[in-house]
């Protein structure tokens, strides 16, 4: 009898512990970050075009950060000889990389260029609140919306336009990444790059020349004409390839705007030493390919040991070789035959 009681008590205790642990952790986190006070003058978020991004936060205290995003509708190049009417944040696909730290208070100015046809807004996955800011930022052509939020959860998050019809606004290129660094910042690395995957759905076939119209049927059927990094076929190839030197540590902030596909992100010839899984706080090590959901992100880090060209792909491989999901990291420096050596 005594044994049964003991067993029962133990079981109860275990159950109780299981129940409490997760809730304790999560509530403690958001309460603490909510209480972080901002100090000093407001700073302006610098605007840097992808694949580059603003400098690390380092160990600065939480501040007020002013971020400006302009919604635009403009014709741009989707592939060689192929143009498309992109909808963008700050004229790039993906939009300007926003880099803040936990506890920062962001004053977000969303303007819609006066020659726009459509209304636009922004839903930031880094925001705690209804619609992620979409409701507060819905803005007509030529107008401005201002929206404040406090960054409570560290991580790498997608932002995107959520004006109706949402799929079209995303399919036309209205997405980007916002990084909320933890207190004290991310560990230092030698190189950082901003890479974001997205699909395009055009009436014409892949590489069919001329101005291409959006194809709604292909969008609904999830049959993209293009799957690309940074808004354009070959945006990270040739002269635009990413660069690093042997011995350096490289960090990619990788997002997936979708609108439909999940990315199997892989760098041919490299192993990710660390992956911040789904852009959150959990770190996985020694990863070959990491899954990045539509509307999701991941931070991948690796050290480059050997010179050469490393091909960045969505390892759903037809996309890479036929639809454009391909980029390149060029590594220069001394060869190391111990690591890699063709014998004959």
């Amino acid at each position, binding site marked *: 009898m005594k044994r049964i009681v003991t067993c029962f008590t133990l079981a109860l205790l275990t159950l109780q512990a299981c129940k409490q642990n997760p809730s304790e952790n999560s509530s403690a986190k958001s309460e603490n970050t909510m209480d972080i006070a901002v100090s000093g003058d407001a700073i302006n978020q610098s605007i840097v075009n992808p694949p580059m991004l603003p400098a690390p936060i380092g160990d600065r205290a939480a501040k007020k950060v002013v971020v400006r995003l302009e919604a635009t509708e403009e014709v741009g190049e989707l592939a060689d000889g192929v143009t498309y009417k992109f909808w963008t944040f700050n004229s790039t696909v993906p939009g300007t990389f926003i880099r803040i730290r936990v506890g920062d208070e962001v004053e977000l100015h969303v303007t819609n260029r006066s020659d726009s046809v459509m209304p636009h807004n922004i839903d930031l996955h880094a925001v705690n609140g209804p619609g992620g800011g979409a409701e507060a930022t819905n803005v007509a052509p030529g*107008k401005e919306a201002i929206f404040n939020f406090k960054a409570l959860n560290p991580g790498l998050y997608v932002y995107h336009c959520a*004006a109706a019809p949402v799929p079209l606004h995303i399919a036309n290129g209205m997405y980007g990444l916002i990084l909320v660094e933890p207190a004290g910042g991310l560990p230092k690395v030698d190189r950082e790059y901003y890479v974001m995957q997205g699909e395009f759905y055009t009436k014409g076939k892949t590489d069919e020349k001329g101005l291409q119209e959006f194809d709604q049927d292909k969008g609904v059927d999830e049959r993209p004409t293009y799957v690309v990094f940074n808004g354009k076929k070959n945006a990270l190839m040739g002269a635009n390839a990413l660069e690093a030197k042997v011995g350096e540590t490289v960090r990619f902030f990788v997002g997936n705007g979708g609108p439909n596909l999940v990315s199997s992100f892989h760098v041919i010839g490299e192993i990710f030493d660390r992956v911040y899984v789904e852009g959150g706080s959990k770190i996985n090590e020694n990863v070959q390919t990491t899954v990045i959901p539509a509307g999701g992100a991941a931070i991948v880090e690796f050290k480059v040991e050997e010179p050469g060209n490393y091909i960045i792909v969505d390892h759903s491989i037809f996309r890479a070789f036929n639809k454009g999901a391909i980029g390149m990291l060029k590594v220069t420096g001394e060869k190391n035959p111990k690591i890699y050596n063709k014998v004959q």
Partner: protein
Amino acid sequence: MYKIFKILMYAGGFFFLMASCEKANTLTSAKVSSDTLDKEVAITPDVKMVLINGGEYQPFYGTDSSLVEVKDFLLDERPVTNAEFLDFVKKNPKWKRSKIKALFADDTYLQDWQDDETLPKNADPEAAVTFVSWFAAKAYAKAAGKRLPTLDEWEYVAMADEESANARDKPTYSAHLINLYNEKDRQKNKVKSSAPNYWGVYNMFDLVWEWTDDFNSIMTTSDSRTAEFDDKGLFCASAATSTTDVLNYASFMRYAFRSSLKASYTVGNLGFRCAKDTTNSTK
């Protein structure tokens, strides 16, 4: 239930669904102080009005059970032009750019005009007037002995293509409009240079977005001063719309555009046209 709502929210843009459901309970209707809008000097624009035979229609955000009846009404066959609006401000100086009260139009009101009585350089007098607020459009309609069409009336007419009164089920209907809507600077073209629809109405889609009388019955901004709030149950309805309508991206665009407006806003590709009851009595 929650899941269905969530799907609806995604399809429609999360933002305005949520807010309007909230608002349905809280927003009280308030009237614009009437004397500012009452005393317009009459104008007589030379525009043909087309008789629209009413009927029941399903609003874009609705369910089968919330069919809305649209009565017979008259609609201007085309949007109001620059020349016509110029005539209106000449006869009603308080609607001139330099005279307008900030309450009734924001600072881009008629912004491209060279002065109070001169149209923009290179502007076609026969192009649709833009950069006009809802207040100004309403005053114009009143001066013309007309009114603005309701959202339901406008959307009822918008169901038509060139051949039929209701083209909503045709797959090409929305696809065509999406690409048309994506063209910039259409507002600079002359009115009536494209083909009329089934009713004989021109330019529903190819020139400008258009104000409707109750544009904000589905919007989020809380300018209750201007809101004759009229919840027709378009919105809080929880059942899904038909598949056809979920794919009707062109309609989504119009609703999204309207929800981004306030009554004082003036926008470069936003104009209006007038309507009238068939009984000849204005609202």
